[in-house]
């Protein structure tokens, strides 16, 4: 069962800033912040995609994984939402 957009946002933020790029709670970047400038690299991106597939419950086609879509929490959530709508 796929998460709702609000749930997906929370799941992705927690995974990113608690697991992938542990960040003190008062210093979590905004939803618009550039994730590449906040420590997202190739290894962590692969882990994030696996997390979105397994835990958020949305299978994202490889060809759609682009810098625009994965650049911020906001763009990831929008992308996931569009996918669910289709």
């Amino acid at each position: 069962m796929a998460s709702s957009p609000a749930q997906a946002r929370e799941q992705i933020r927690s995974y990113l800033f608690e697991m992938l790029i542990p960040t003190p709670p008062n210093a979590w970047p905004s939803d618009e912040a550039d994730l590449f400038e906040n420590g997202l690299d190739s290894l962590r991106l692969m882990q994030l995609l696996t997390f979105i597939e397994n835990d958020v419950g949305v299978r994202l086609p490889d060809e759609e994984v682009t810098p625009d879509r994965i650049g911020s929490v906001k763009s990831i959530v929008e992308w996931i939402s569009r996918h669910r709508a289709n």
Partner: protein
Amino acid sequence: MFESLYHLLEKAALRYPDRPALRFADQSLTYRDLGDRSRRLAALLMENGAAPGQRVAFSFTKSIDAVLALFALIRTGATYVPLDPTWPTERVAMICDDAEISLWVGSRAPIGIKRIRASIVSNVECDAIALSSADRCPPATGDVPPPQRGIANILFTSGSTGRPKGVEITTESLIHFSGWVVEEFELTNEDRIANHAPYNFDLSTLDIFAAVGAGATMVPVPEKLKMFPYQMAKYIADHRITVWYSVPSALIMMQLRGKLAEHDLSALRHILFAGEVMPKPALQAIARGIPHTEYANLYGPTETNVCTYHRVTADDLACDALVPIGRPISDTRLWLLDNQGNARDIRKNGADGGELLVAGPTVTRGYHGDSELTARRLVPAPDGLGLAYRTGDRVHARPDGVLLFDGRIDRMIKCRGHRIEPGEIEAALSAHHAVKEAAVIPLPDPVFGNRIKACIAPRDGATLTDAEMIAFCRERLPTYMLPDLWQFYSALPRTDREKVDLQALTQ
């Protein structure tokens, strides 16, 4: 063979003036343009202090300006010191100090680096001299003969003492190596050679200098695409790349998430990989995805550039044995050091294995400003001809003389092709006031070689979190050195001899 690196470009500009030297995204540059513009830029650099014997910071993401600046610097005879633009300021400042750098050329300004006196920045927003202003410079007069045997560049790699160490790469090494590549892989001016590795990585010297040596087209891979396997495979197809050279993890990512079958990769003649062990199952899967291409494993620590290689055969792909590191490249001599420190002939004592010792034209002259480390790692060659580099890699030879890699004799970790000294990360962790003791260990990963686990014992009464530690480390270490996993202990486990029990930490 070419006399100097700049002659590579001069000759290509004379022979193939209208051929594309460089294609990047939707831009391109002919060899005539690359020659002319880098010559004018060299004049600007010389006005700002670039000269033989001087070291100049070179801090670029992939761009046409980067290649222009690189050849301009080579023309001035200065030594270029590639610095990754994403490295933290503290690390860059340390390197600029150690290399005594006062001139900076880059795609970003040297913010916060005090010792830089002049900077030339290619991004006009940075309120500095744009590289394009070089077009307005008068043509350089007279022919500045580049030094024949100088240090071409210094590549800084992880240092076990907590300070990066600078490997001095000679002009001779790069000329010899690029000449060997052009011959071995029969490169021509029809080739299009991708440049995937960053400039501070020795792999990039093949992409740049072998391309120019052959009059081929360099095709830098935009930095952001490198994290996106499908986009990277598409880039190879769109640009009709004929030669690809990267660390194994980039290829493995493309195989896993690049949908190789959807792309027309028919132009690819050679896939070369280096930097860490390519797992055989991964190579087999890649070769099923791109079946018509020839594969080769190139081996060598930064200190030797590439010193051995192995062309992958159908027999290799059909068996499960490790991918060999192969045989020496031209004019390179190899020995094995046994447990007593005696140099052995590989052909006679290969099966016993030992630490690989390398001598030849691609071997470094030493570590910048560190004669003690240089003396430890560069020892008199057993045949009496110059110095040989102790690689720290354990290898053994098959009966046919082909070498196989068996691991390290020390704790160095390979992660996405980067070499990481646990000591450098441990030094960064220990700099935190609440850390009593820290140890770093590798955890094997099927795609990325290794992941890094940090094991920390806080001082009595202190509590630490992974979030706090990672924020602290990001000020000090490049992203690829940040630990992926964190574990906190009341005290680190000990062996019988009271050393930290690294084996127990893997549990």
